[in-house]
């Protein structure tokens, strides 16, 4: 049966010329036109993508193989020496390790907090008006721009700020905590702020997913004797899994590239305690004026993001 079908399709798609002789010129033109037509429709998008994405990416990759571009009038090809220099720099590895810790913690807590708040907002026991109010309150951190978030938390976590005042009032600390200047806790403080600023996006997406789960599934599980924990583990999580996977991968990519928040609060310091690949790259470009090295670091960051993006696309395809 399958073979018959294949044969039918093959016969239908077989070009007219395949049976001997060239098709008439009119048909050839028509066929060429039908092939070009989709490209013509796509051309504005292709042009924009080319100018805004392909060309800059190609240029940055090209810069990473040249001697110091921008600062040198005639940079020369240096092969992989920029990559060797980058991978020999201890600060690069320190930045990469900080970036990994920061990113993993942010993605994990975004997911946990997002899921917890989404569950709360999806609870039928809470009146609708209250749900709407909570929804507005919970989404606020995500609405703020990075600059607002930075100003807000710099005031709160200043050694003379609100956080220390509350902790001192409750006798939880004896001396002022230097949230951003103590190298042992600075990265943790930044991670905390980034978690606060980013969890609402997870919350909204997961809430939409939760609202899409059929109540029949929970009802059937309850009849079979499943408690709240089992229902959560065996219905909620599997039903949300595609959203969780997609969100986690996207969030990973976004957090690996986080720059504004880190730079505006600590600048990567004290020393390199909060240096991430983003701030490291920026300093190479606009502190040391080593633009080829910055391009090299950018390419590494790009490849890291692309690796995760690859799995994201694969998971999307599997879903489809």
């Amino acid at each position, binding site marked *: 049966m399958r073979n018959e079908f294949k044969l039918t399709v093959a016969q239908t798609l077989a070009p007219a010329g395949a049976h001997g002789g060239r098709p008439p010129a009119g048909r050839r033109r028509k066929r060429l036109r039908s*092939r*070009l037509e989709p*490209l013509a429709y796509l*051309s504005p998008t*292709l*042009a924009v993508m*080319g*100018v805004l994405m*392909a*060309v800059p990416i190609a240029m940055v990759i090209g810069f990473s193989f040249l001697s110091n*571009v*921008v*600062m040198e*009038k005639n940079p020369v090809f240096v092969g992989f020496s920029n990559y060797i220099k980058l991978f020999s720099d201890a600060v690069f590895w320190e930045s990469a390790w900080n970036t990994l810790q920061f990113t993993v913690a942010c993605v994990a807590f975004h997911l946990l907090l997002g899921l917890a708040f989404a569950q709360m907002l999806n609870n039928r026991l809470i009146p609708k008006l209250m749900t709407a109010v909570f929804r507005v309150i919970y989404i606020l951190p995500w609405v703020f721009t990075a600059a607002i978030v930075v100003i807000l938390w*710099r005031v709160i976590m*200043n*050694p*003379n700020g609100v956080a220390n005042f509350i902790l001192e009032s409750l006798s939880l600390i004896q001396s*002022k905590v*230097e949230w*951003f*200047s103590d*190298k042992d806790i*600075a990265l943790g403080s930044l991670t905390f702020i980034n978690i606060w600023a980013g969890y609402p996006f997870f919350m909204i997406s997961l809430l939409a997913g939760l609202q899409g789960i059929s109540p029949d599934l929970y009802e059937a599980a309850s009849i079979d004797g499943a408690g709240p924990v089992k229902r959560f583990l065996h219905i909620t999580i599997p039903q949300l899994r595609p959203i969780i996977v997609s969100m986690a991968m996207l969030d990973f990519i976004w957090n690996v590239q986080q720059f504004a928040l880190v*730079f*505006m*609060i*600590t*600048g*990567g*310091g*004290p*020393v*390199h305690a909060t240096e991430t690949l983003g701030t490291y790259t920026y*300093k190479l470009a*606009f*502190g*040391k*004026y080593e633009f080829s090295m910055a391009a090299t670091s950018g390419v590494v960051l790009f490849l890291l993001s692309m690796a995760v993006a690859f799995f994201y696309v694969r998971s999307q395809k599997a879903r489809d």
Partner: protein
Amino acid sequence: MRLKRICPVIVAALALPALGACGDSAESGKADGGEIELSFSQWWEVELPEGVLRGVMDDFEKQNPGVKVKLISNPYAETMKTEIAAAATGTMADVVAINGESVYDLKEQGAIVNLSELMTQANYDPSELMSNDQIDGNTYMVRALNFTYPMYFNTDLLAQAGYTEVPSNWSEFTEAAKAVTDEQANTYAWSMPISVESPAGFDPEAWLWASGGRYLDNRQPAFTTPEVKAEFEFLLQQYKDKLITPGAFTQQEQDKVEEFTQGRNAFMIGSLAHINGIRTSNPDLNFSIGAVPAQDGYEGKRGIAGASWGLGVADNSEHKAEAWKLIEYLLSTEVNSKLATEAIGFPGNRNSTPGYVEGDPLFQQAFDLYQASELAMEFEALPKLTDLRRNLNENLVKMLQEEQTVEETQEALQTYWSEALG
């Protein structure tokens, strides 16, 4: 197949004009009616009162018929980044506002011209300039304005602690600092922002400069001197005695000003430009201005930290003579006085006098101090200065956290700076 070959060509053809447009922020050329249009990239218009710089340009245009000036105004950091990028693509504005942080790197890029030649061509006498800094015997930047960083004293806090006189040496300062510091009341002697984000201000450096010491000797690092050691030991002791506001390692310039303005710091090393801001934000605060205390026993001329608003001419400019004419105009006695008055800076022309000194005792004090001191601007025109200043702050943090000794700090700085300046 042919389509596959053609596609990249089409994309590239579309991309090229767009790329060309990206870098071209300040094309010089002829304005309507055959007039010359000079572009002037700066951060000054943003920092000066509204309309001041445009007014100066309008006056210049009146005096120079046929020349129009187009102002390209951005905040400081943005101006610096744009200039470095424009230098690479040969699209700099005709006249560029630069300073000690950028002049060397722009000169190395071949982006700014030798002003000594333009001065000679225009028969300009450089002796009018307060200072004529040179790189390899040539001038690449002239300073339109200088800004100094004296010490501010909160006279209320000092009076409460029983001090009527401001400290003049490190011992007196330490004694007063201990007297005014009250951790429970969130009051500390001073703030020392040494963030690595965008190093600004001269809080650690000013102590050395006030005592006649320098970090450089003939533009080469000299961190291993006894003077630098004494200064680092002084800073370390201040930190250990908890006289410095907590959070110094990520504190920024504006945080320091805020601490002083709100009366939580008794001392502040800051730009003169803060006077009006402090008066507006906290009119009840009583403060004075004076020299940064010097090392005990030092009797020589005090060094005072300074920064500048400089000017250069782009190598890609098609109107270099007219560009110099604009610079000369900005440096002329009257215009330079006006700029200094509006920016609360000190004029680059030695014959100019800023208007603000008349009638305001605090400004008069600052002007007297400026004239009595030696301007310490040894960091001016160093290559990769932002990176070097970050390195200085990083090493100070390590020293204050006792991860390295004073001697190790000196050695680390000497090594890093030698490699950069070598």
